[in-house]
């Protein structure tokens, strides 16, 4: 993708444990540079970010395009994206009998580091409470409780590079009692211990890698998880290769004996500023869910680190361009000047604006490629800046130059898909994909299109008149079974259950 990042050689040695080397640091609670190496995978210079997947793909990027345009990153994959509840059965991917089932199933490049966690990031709160042995997942077909045994077995079967230990975090709960926090600490300790035992007793062929474990650090005060942390230090620290941190501000309190470990952030940032804050606290690997949410809204990032040197303006600059705006319709310019990504070197704003307004899927893909490239070069430059000792100064100019938040979302996201339906939206009775134009033509009644004949239709009788063409849907009100037409035919199974 965007040029610039020096890519070290892929190591040929079989993987044993993560090798993490801190290349530069100025003490605790300060930004640091490192090299994160998994045998056989592309080393990652840190701070860096992992691609955040949905059902095994970066949204809108088919795996070939991921390899071609974004494959230099590692990826974070959630087990809950692969577990189905109905029918009650073994998740299909568990039955895939190849050496690295998850990687192969999702067609991830061989050299891409693969991190598995139980939940997506950010996770959607589930109503079911956790128990001493299990957490609740949200699969595409509903809630499912998953025990620590199940999780450890999944890790053993799927063979990702890194497994994030299952953490007992009651997501979505505003206040958590002290008693509950105690439980969090107890359970997370037990679950991690179980994962470590499973991994350490795994029978593998000589030279065959097991998987590495990142221990979760709970988003509660250090005192309240001290029991867990003590045990972690006493008898598990040699078995873990990194930390998964749910609250970046707790890096302050991290025991010294854990400082050598790479830190993966599952603390959800809302803006580039927050990424900088996490980096300034010493985070190494970050997840950036706002990339895809900006892409879905048609927002193309437009920021660099440090910001361009321009005469001081009293107005702060926007962090992204809303590509829905008609002003881009004739602009034969890239999304960002100088950006070397595929979207910017091969296409232009006019086309991308057209694709969005025509609801063509390619539009979101191009913005997604660009947004990943912008964040990629953001990390490249902040590493340079840390190396040069100019990081703090650059952060200050960045904050002064850009607005504190990403722009408001005005455009429509692509047609809602599975995971978009999961959260609170379930409660609301609104249509997920509201109809746009209602087909009234000057009050003279509805324009009707009864199947796009002149093009061979679907063969199945019930599908004959179903139009699944955004272009056509946009042009005319379609009456023939309007519900079916409204791509409700692409039923998401959890809908059926209501």
């Amino acid at each position, binding site marked *: 993708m965007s040029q610039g990042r020096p890519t070290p050689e892929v190591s040929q040695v079989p993987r044993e444990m993560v090798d993490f080397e801190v290349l530069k640091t100025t003490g605790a609670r300060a930004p640091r540079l490192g090299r994160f190496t998994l045998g056989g995978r592309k080393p990652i210079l840190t701070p860096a970010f992992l691609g955040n997947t949905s*059902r095994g793909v970066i949204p809108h990027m088919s795996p070939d395009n991921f390899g071609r345009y974004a494959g230099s990153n590692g990826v974070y994959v959630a087990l809950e994206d692969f577990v189905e509840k109905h029918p009650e059965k073994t998740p*299909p991917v568990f039955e895939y009998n190849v050496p690295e089932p998850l990687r192969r199933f999702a067609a991830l490049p061989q050299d891409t580091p693969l991190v598995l966690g139980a939940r997506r990031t950010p996770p959607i709160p589930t109503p079911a409470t956790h128990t001493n042995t299990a957490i609740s997942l949200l699969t595409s077909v509903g809630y499912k409780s998953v025990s620590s045994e199940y999780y450890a077995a999944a890790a053993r079967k799927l063979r990702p590079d890194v497994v994030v230990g299952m953490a007992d975090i009651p997501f979505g709960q505003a206040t958590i009692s002290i008693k509950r926090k105690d439980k969090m600490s107890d359970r997370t300790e037990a679950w991690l211990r179980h994962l470590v035992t499973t991994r350490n007793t795994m029978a593998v062929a000589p030279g065959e890698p097991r998987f590495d474990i990142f221990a979760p650090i709970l988003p509660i005060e250090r005192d309240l998880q001290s029991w867990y942390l003590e045990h972690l230090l006493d008898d598990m620290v040699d078995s873990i290769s990194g930390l998964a941190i749910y609250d970046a501000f707790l890096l302050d309190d991290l025991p010294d004996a854990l400082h050598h470990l790479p830190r993966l952030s599952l603390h959800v940032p809302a803006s580039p500023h927050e990424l900088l804050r996490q980096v300034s606290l010493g985070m190494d690997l970050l997840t950036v869910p706002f990339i895809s949410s900006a892409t879905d809204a048609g927002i193309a990032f437009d920021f660099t680190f440090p910001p361009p040197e321009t005469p001081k303006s009293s107005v702060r600059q926007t962090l992204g361009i809303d590509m829905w705006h008609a002003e881009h319709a*004739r602009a034969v310019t890239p999304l960002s000047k100088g950006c070397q990504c595929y979207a910017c070197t091969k296409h232009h704003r006019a086309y991308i604006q057209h694709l969005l307004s025509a609801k063509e*899927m390619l539009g979101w893909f191009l913005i997604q490629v660009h947004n990943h490239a912008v964040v990629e070069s953001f990390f490249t430059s902040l590493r340079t800046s840390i190396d040069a000792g100019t990081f703090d100064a650059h952060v200050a100019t960045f904050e002064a130059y850009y607005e504190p938040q990403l722009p408001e979302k005005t455009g429509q996201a692509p047609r809602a*898909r599975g995971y978009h339906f999961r959260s609170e939206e379930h409660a609301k009775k609104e249509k997920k994909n509201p109809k746009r134009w209602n087909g009234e033509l000057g009050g003279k009644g509805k324009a009707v299109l009864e199947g796009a004949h*002149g093009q061979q239709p679907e063969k199945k009788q019930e599908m004959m008149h179903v139009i699944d063409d955004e272009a056509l849907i946009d*042009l005319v009100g379609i009456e023939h079974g309007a519900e079916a037409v409204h791509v409700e035919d692409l039923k998401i199974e959890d809908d059926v259950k209501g």
Partner: protein
Amino acid sequence: MPMPSALSFELLGKCSVTKARAATLHLPHGPVPLPIFMPVATQASLKGLTPEQLEKQGCRLCLNNTYHLGLKPGQATLDAIGGAHRFQSWPHNLLTDGDSFQMVSLLKLAQVTEEGVRFLSPHDGSPMLLTPEHSISLQNSIGSDIMMQLDDVIVTTSPDLARMKEAMERSVRWLDRCIQAHKYPERQNLFCIIQGGLDLDLRRECTAEMVARDTPGIAIGGLSGGEAKDEYCKVVDTCTGLLPEKKPRYVMGVGYPEDLVVSVALGADMFDCVWPTRTARFGNAITSRGVLNLRNAVYSTDFGPIEEGCQCTCCRPPEDGGLGITRAYVYHTTAKETAGAHLLTMHNVHYQLNLMRLVREAILEDRYPAFLRSFFAKLYDDKSKYPEWAVGALKGVGVDLLSD
């Protein structure tokens, strides 16, 4: 005076039994093999695929829709950017169809007059008029390698013979206006469209009129609108019988694999259809053994490729530089991630293009009848299931599918 042409048709081989032909069509943006299937990128984009992904499936000629591009991005933008190739960064050939017009004609409020088609804008309800001159002007701005005349299309199944005749004759007059309006005949090829519904006399009359106008290529239009398949075959057979040998013949809107192979036997060279790419979004995979709906739970643990031996980006194993996508993974992503649709779209486009490549090889090696027999034997497990229309149509050109 012969009409200038921006193509050359190189006939390479003819089937010694059927009317099938193999050729190379040299177009402004490079040569394309005939027979050919052309995927439809209605709004200058093919269901989420990048131009490179489309190219990798072997595509060198795809469709855009004149009317859609006329609305979005609009003619002024196309002019400013320098045409649709630049607009969508597609270095290969484009054909612009006007079947949008057919869609417009289905709007109850559309009205066809000698001047053109009057209808209310689907965007804001304002009155609009689409004329042959306007259609050509748009296609000149688009810069398509092959452009289609504006025609007056009636659903083939319409019982109104007088209206059918009127539409046919009007299409001929509109072709004259299109030829008149065409600004760049030396770099864009205008194809006529034969009309006349299912009435073979009307079709013959129309064919004679159209051929006399000597356009670089000839389309047979108004079909695939739900007419009986044997009627469809009669029309194609009748028209190709009257067409000059050295010009490409395009049957509009056809894309089912069995229709393609039969139509080729009847002497047609070019086809387009939205079906293969549209159906991908429903989770349907086209294979030589029929269409599989990969959203069916039986595929959730099927770890084979979409089709064994397929050389598309998805099906090829990683050892051969492909993705090694399994049916189970398509099941996992279809209708849940847009990328799931991208994967099946690549496969389906590849299937269609590869089918035509195999057809072409068979014609060049003069074994097309044998190809047809094995094609149908793969698609249907029993001869009793062969569609009657296909058996009948092929018998008419000397191939008996039912004999051993």
